[in-house]
């Protein structure tokens, strides 16, 4: 049995995970919005999604590079940015604690690894958030962290296109 692919995919995919109506939880989506507006970035696919690990596996299968921006609540200072090379570093199990109805990002990576459906490389940016009440405003610390992550991802994409990927 086979299933035909309908759309040609770019090799690089940047995914923002979150809920834009839960204040700081929307930071990953804001980063994607800013990157999409940047005319200097081409040949990259973007995706904004709610925390649904099953859909993540579908999205990143057979990509060369996937960058994921997600909110984290690990108890650290709000606005803290952490970067993980997903296949060479240990990722905290509760990185996406806001998933309630589906598997988390870390579980999705584990499942995709078992099923041999991981991309070649995956970078995860986790932004420590504070306010997850109802609303669409980011707290100042998280808004600032989002801007920094946008710049960092831009540099990652540039390095990837020049074949000079570097670990920050």
């Amino acid at each position, binding site marked *: 049995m086979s299933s035909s692919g309908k759309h040609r995919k770019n090799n690089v995919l940047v995914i923002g995970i979150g809920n834009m109506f839960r204040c700081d939880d929307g930071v990953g989506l804001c980063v994607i919005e800013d990157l999409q507006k940047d005319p200097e970035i081409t040949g990259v696919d973007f995706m904004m999604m*709610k925390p*649904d690990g*099953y859909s993540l596996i*579908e999205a990143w299968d057979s990509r060369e590079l996937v960058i994921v921006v997600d909110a984290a609540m690990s108890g650290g200072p709000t606005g803290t940015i952490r970067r993980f090379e997903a296949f060479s570093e240990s990722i905290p199990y509760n990185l996406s604690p806001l998933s309630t*109805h589906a598997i988390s990002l870390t579980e999705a990576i*584990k*499942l995709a690894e*078992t*099923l041999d*459906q991981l991309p070649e490389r995956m970078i995860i940016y986790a932004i420590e958030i504070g306010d997850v009440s109802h609303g669409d405003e980011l707290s100042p610390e998280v808004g600032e962290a989002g801007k920094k992550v946008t710049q960092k991802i831009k540099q990652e994409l540039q390095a990837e296109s020049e074949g000079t990927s570097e670990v920050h």
Partner: protein
Amino acid sequence: MPNPIHSEKKVSTMKNKTINVDYLSRVEGEGALRVDIQDNQVKDVKLNIFEPPRYFEAFLRGRDFREAPDITARICGICPVAYQMSASHAMEDIAGRKIGGPIRELRRLLYCGEWIESHALHVFMLHAPDFLGYEDALQMAAEYPDQVKMGLKLKKIGNALMDLLGGRSVHPISPRVGGFYKVPTRQELDAMVDDLKWAKDASLETVKWVSTLPFPDFEIDYEFVALRHPDEYPFNEGRIVSNKGVDIPLSEFEKVFEEEHVQHSTALHAHRKNGGPYLVGPLARYNLNYDRLTPTVQKAAEEAGIAETCKSPHKSIIVRSLELLYACEEALRIIDQYAKPECPYEEVKPGAGRGYGCTEAPRGILYHRYDIDDNGAITDAKIVPPTSQNQEMIESDLRSYVENHLEMEEEELQWKCEQIVRNYDPCISCSTHFLKLDINRK
């Protein structure tokens, strides 16, 4: 060989026991279960739904009738289409309108997408691990990678169908009272055909696979309640019927069934007035509508050993797989016969009045009733989701199972109780308006 995490060994036990599941896994939403056993008799079984009440019925009041499909879709991320369909049909009922032709067919197609997505998730990721002795699909994937991949791909195809018809797969934005804001082109639907043909073959394989799973000897004499349509396996239309005498139009639902608040749950419990619990969902639909299934599905059911009737809640995994097969075939039929409507919707302008909508969500009948005023503002709303209808039946199943397995080892009994709850694919988020397991022996 898989590593069963719970063995079937039985041990002698104390007379009194409490089984506690503080947080039920692989169910949609949050709930718990407590079983009290005293002097080797089941004293009490309680599903404790602690997800907070949602108050949707209250905040629909004062809103325009056209907003009901979008507002109620927010009740559930797994079955938003069901809410949109029941709400739309209720508003059209107030206006005395019946939407037919290609728009009706597209509504059935959208429902096919939701059934494929929801059933694939439950069969492969949530339910199958129970029969194979795995904690979850992540563990199962190491030994059954092909099945997990198949499940994910089926789910993806269901999502794609919802994306195409609904604008997006979670909380679709295209459905509206009277039809859709936008309908697909013939070419866009044709592009789904190869995937749906794959999905049909995969569903047939799924039926064959799940029918080989080890099932306990446990059957219940249920009162099944589902929609029944003169010609179709039910999605959007039909009378509400049961195998124990109910045959009513939607408008009589509240005369025959009632909801009751129980202290231990934030979800209302539904039952027959002056009667007991009843079952909605795949098993009910299947037992009441077997003759409406396609020859392909009936043949697959026959080969799976459950032709015409199935009273085993555990075998609901086979029935869901048969419904997956049906949804794929039905989707292909609709696409094959599709002719794009000139207008994506029919204008519906209801006056003041009361209307009813009841459609078959993946988990069973979803009943909506609305009153609107002369300005089209909603003055009263009632929503009865499938999981709240099934709650009392789940408690009844648990009572029957525990009563027959009092000698079972504590850990094993707890595991079996959790499985019984998962047989129902309960959507707790929908019903709160639900799960954790406690078995107390005294």
